[in-house]
């Protein structure tokens, strides 16, 4: 293997990953320096149930109108994020466990997932450009992040077979760039997401609002009220 690619796949990634880790740790420390609002009232519901429900909403498209009314958006979300995760995964597999990618079945599966993610990403780009309601909320970072992820997924698709030099160079060069850029961009939302869902879940769980009551659970609650619980 070319020495340049080897360094790019290994040492460069480690350096970039270290920078990312430092920035993320600093960011978490920075967030923790802000005092949280602490609820003092007696709870009506359960914090734990609220937090669990809040996190589980990601896997419950029916729990939100935004996804229950437009299931294709949820499918698109799932495919896109699954593709990104797969691409992240192969960025570790290719340099450290290259034998895994020798299996044609694995390569086929990887390419299928990433290919679907590419289509989902394309739909996202079109939507962001075509709809006025999306354009008004989009910053250059939103366009850039999405566009660059598409390019990255494109390289990942071709790099999956671990036999195309230039695609591998493109993939790992972009991965290194992402590792440094992401902590500063909107793509770092996954770092804040657990905090946001935790605090919202805790807050609404405390008040007995989460887990959200659905038509299906009404009977149980009505019975509880009838029994004076």
């Amino acid at each position, binding site marked *: 293997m070319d020495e340049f690619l080897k360094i790019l796949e290994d040492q460069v990634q480690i350096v970039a990953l270290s920078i990312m880790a430092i920035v993320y740790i600093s*960011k978490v420390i920075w*967030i*923790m320096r*802000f*005092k*949280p*609002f602490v*609820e*003092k*009232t*007696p709870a*009506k*519901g359960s914090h734990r149930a609220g937090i669990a429900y*809040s996190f589980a909403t*990601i896997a419950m498209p029916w729990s*939100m*109108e*935004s*996804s229950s*009314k437009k299931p294709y958006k949820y499918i698109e*979300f799932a495919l896109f994020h699954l593709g990104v995760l797969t691409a992240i995964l192969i960025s570790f597999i290719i340099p450290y466990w290259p034998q895994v990618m020798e299996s044609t079945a694995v390569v086929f599966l990887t390419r299928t997932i990433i290919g679907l993610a590419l289509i989902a990403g394309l739909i996202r780009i079109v*939507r962001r450009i075509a*709809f*006025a*309601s*999306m*354009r*008004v*909320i*989009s*910053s*250059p*970072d*939103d366009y*850039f992040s999405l566009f660059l992820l598409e390019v990255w997924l494109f390289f990942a698709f071709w790099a999956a077979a671990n036999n195309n030099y230039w695609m591998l160079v493109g993939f790992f060069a972009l991965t290194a760039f992402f590792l440094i850029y992401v902590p*500063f*961009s*909107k793509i770092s*939302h996954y770092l*804040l*997401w657990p*905090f*946001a*869902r935790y*605090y*919202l*879940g805790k*807050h609404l769980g405390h*008040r*007995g*609002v989460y887990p*959200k*009551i*659905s038509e299906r659970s*009404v009977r149980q609650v*009505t019975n509880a*009220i*009838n*029994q*004076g619980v």
Partner: protein
Amino acid sequence: MASRSESIKSDKAIKAIELFRKRMNRQAIISMGVCVHCGNCTETCHYYQATKDPKMSPSYKADKVRKIYKKHFDWLGRVLPGWVGAKDISTDADLEELKDICFGSCTMCRRCTFNCPMGVDKALIIRTARGILTELKVAPQGILDVNKDQWEVGNQMGVSDEEYLETIDWLSEELQNELGDPDAKMPMDIPDCNIVYAINPREVKYAPMSLLASAKIFYAVDESWTLPAKGWDNTNFGLFSGDNALGGHMGKLVFENVQRLNGKMLVTSECGHGYRSTKWESPNWSGIIMKQPILNFLEVVCDYVNSGRLKLDKSRNKEPVTYHDPCNYARSGGITEEPRFLLRQSVMEFREMYPNRADNWCCSGGGGAMSMSEYSKRRLEAARIKAEQLKATGAKIVATACHNCVDALTDLIRHYKLNMKVSLVGEMVANAVVIEKKPRVAVPVVRGDAFLKGYTILVVDDEPDMVTFLSAVFEDNGGTVIKASNGDEALTALRRQKPHLMTLDLSMPGKSGVEVFEEIRRDQKLTRLPIFVISGQPELRKLIYDNSFAPPEGYADKPIDEERLLLTVRKILNIPHRS
């Protein structure tokens, strides 16, 4: 040393940034930073749904606040502001724009929050900005006026102690007459009761029916309860204005009086934001955690029904009823099933509204919107979504558990010409109550007792049918009626004949009712004339909430029924049934 951009900032803009920094806590920082602009919230907002204006997207509105965060807190935003949409607040015009967005195009209903995959609390973002704007006095006049009344008088409608006590006294007599029992009372400031009942000032000022309904239910179960003489307002404009200090002040007033009276529990009447504030927010704002539980009236009534203390006869409410979930109960308070349970026990036919509970659409009057008359047109436009939801139920009555919702639903029902009435859940329950106990001494129920004998009433309306209806009711009850069909005629008649009361329509050709109202209030000789506004116009809210003039003594939305009309007239003129 100040940078160039800081040196050209307005004083208010500089102060706004300072306040912004102070108000950032961990939850706010996270909500500001986590949005990915996915646009999933867009269609969950009633303002967007009704107008399809992209700038009504919750994400766009929150971004107007978030851009300040990005400029001053976000790491990339401080270096490359344009890249992430960071922008500073520099001028008073920027603050005015923020005011329009935060007060005029968001009811903080939290529907978008519940539909955000990231868990961004956009209502928290908007409320943060509202708090800053309120502190800078860049807020709608109605909000500032009500804030001032709550700070200075201790209740949102500026009701004096004297007026409060007189009204409760008068209501006691109404209750005695309705129940035929001289022992039926609105207990005032009684120590050691089970329940200290905190109410909405609207119940004292304009909607005594709901307080009578509560009192009737308490009477039916022989509850030991009391109204406090002080600290009786459960509402809290601190929630709407973002002023946490006011929020704490109002909570403290209520809590201290519960403790003074040694009540066993604090119960708030049917008021969405009042319940949320009192139970969930005020203890945090004030730092007072009472040992007594805080409950909503509906929770208590549920207990009465479950324990068999309260018997209901649903055949008394024959028309189909649907229920509107107030946002502050369903999305911020954890009350969704109690009102449904009570309605199912109290009415012949209950029809569910879809979507419902935490997914329900806002009535359009939340977040203090009813007190911001400058946004009435936008509010009513956004209310189209709720109107469609109501219409789809086919119900004749929409019950709800919040006075703000009652007002907003009444406005939208008239605006969209729906054939529906609005009622509080408690009123529906009270109508179905079966009272089994016999009064110690029966009080004869007085009907048609010519109670208006000796009173002259000026009826001002350009609709002949309305004039005929009002005149007939007043004359049937012994009153003398003077009629006027426009503003000029009304003022002339007023100066010549000096009536005891004037009913006033707001929408009339020539001089409008609002102009007549203001002219009377400005005139030293006429200013004390009691005015009962009977109108279908949203301008009415301005007269109630803006403090430029003393508010009307009574108001009712058209169409008005005879019972409500006479009750309000008796209240204004302080005439009990047994006069």
